């Protein structure tokens, strides 16, 4: 059972990573509202498991819990296809909609939309690497995948993101012409 001392230690060690936890949840779930609920749940779980944490990379430890909580939530609530296949057809179509062309000017919107088109499992490695600055080793620990898979996922994820952005840019050009 955790005592007051554990709680103080938890607040001191784990709570500072709340932003990182929330950010990861937002990007896996594609929703701030859902991310709030899931992060809250994950934090409580982390607190319960805190006894099992014996030093090391606390952020990676927390993000692993957050990630697992996110996927459990997704399976339960959305039953979404977490396919590892990048659907070229789909993204060709989606990139050509007038909405996507209209937002092409805004960087935040443009990048957000492009990130949303890639599957969560690829999106999360981009978020962990580019937004959270995690090392490959940390990503491997968080996502429970081998180091080699981190490398291949990351290169595929970047390729997909780049192509999603490129298509949007092309769409905008076509529109202007």
């Amino acid at each position, binding site marked *: 059972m955790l005592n007051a001392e554990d709680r103080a230690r938890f607040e001191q060690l784990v709570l500072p990573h709340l932003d990182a936890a929330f*950010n990861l949840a937002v990007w896996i779930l594609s929703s701030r509202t859902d991310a*709030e609920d899931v992060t809250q749940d994950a934090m409580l779980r982390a607190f319960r498991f805190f006894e099992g944490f014996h030093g090391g990379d606390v952020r990676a430890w927390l993000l692993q819990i957050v990630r697992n909580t996110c996927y459990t939530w997704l399976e339960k609530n959305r039953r979404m296809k977490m396919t590892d296949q990048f659907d070229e057809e789909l993204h060709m179509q989606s990139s050509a909609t007038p909405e996507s062309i209209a937002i092409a000017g805004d960087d935040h919107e443009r990048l957000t939309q492009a990130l949303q088109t890639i599957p969560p499992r690829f999106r999360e490695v981009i978020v962990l690497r580019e937004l959270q600055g995690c090392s490959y080793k940390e990503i491997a620990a968080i996502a429970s995948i081998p180091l080699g898979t981190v490398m291949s996922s990351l290169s595929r994820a970047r390729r997909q993101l780049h192509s999603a952005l490129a298509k949007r840019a092309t769409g905008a050009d076509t529109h202007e012409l």
Partner: protein
Amino acid sequence: MSCDLEYSVVHSYFDGELSAIRAAEFKHHLAHCSGCMDQFATLSSLRGSLKYARLYETAPASLRLKIRWDLQSAGPTPSWSLPLAWRGLAGAIGVFLVVLILWRVIPGVRKEEDYQAEFAAEIVDAHLRSLLPGQITNVNSTDPETVKAWFARQVKFAFPVRDFATDGFALQGGRVDIVQGRTVAALVYRNREQVFNVFIWRARESDGSAHTGTRQGYQWIDWRKDSLEFCTVSEAAPSDLERLHRLLSE
């Protein structure tokens, strides 16, 4: 120029994940391989765009608050303090009484316990939301007439607005809030350092008896009068809350 290297090597180099020796080798390779150079440039520009787009989502203050409460309530207490035990007991009795009363008043409703827990949670949440900076009042006035006139434009029901500054509860103003999907009026009073929210909405039943409860260290009293339901909530001692309840019921 063709390149035999695996695509992910460029990424590993770009991410600073190659060993010193391999990094030096690759750096040399990069100078001569336009294909890898292009990829490297693409990666840099992608990183630049991601950084520039400010995609990092920070946790809202309300989430931080919620988690702190979770920790407080999840924190087991080997040294169970008496006040805490009392609070728990008072809460349990309060909820039990409310459930019991509602069970009799609204026959056919079977989920009163859930409803009460949800009600208490929403009331306390609304109270806490109001304590966030800049949220407490939409109309900021100690003059009852001003506050009353403002509410007349905001909500479809009328209720008395009074200042009890002489009794220690100074009117601060009011705002419109949402509790359980209903639009409610909220009057704000201050007694010393404590903030009191009084939520008011049109009652479904006219029942005079007051219910009290406590949740996360916040107390609430709920009562109905003249087809309006009132619920006052605060962190203050139950006796202070009861004083405000009496003043409002007069």
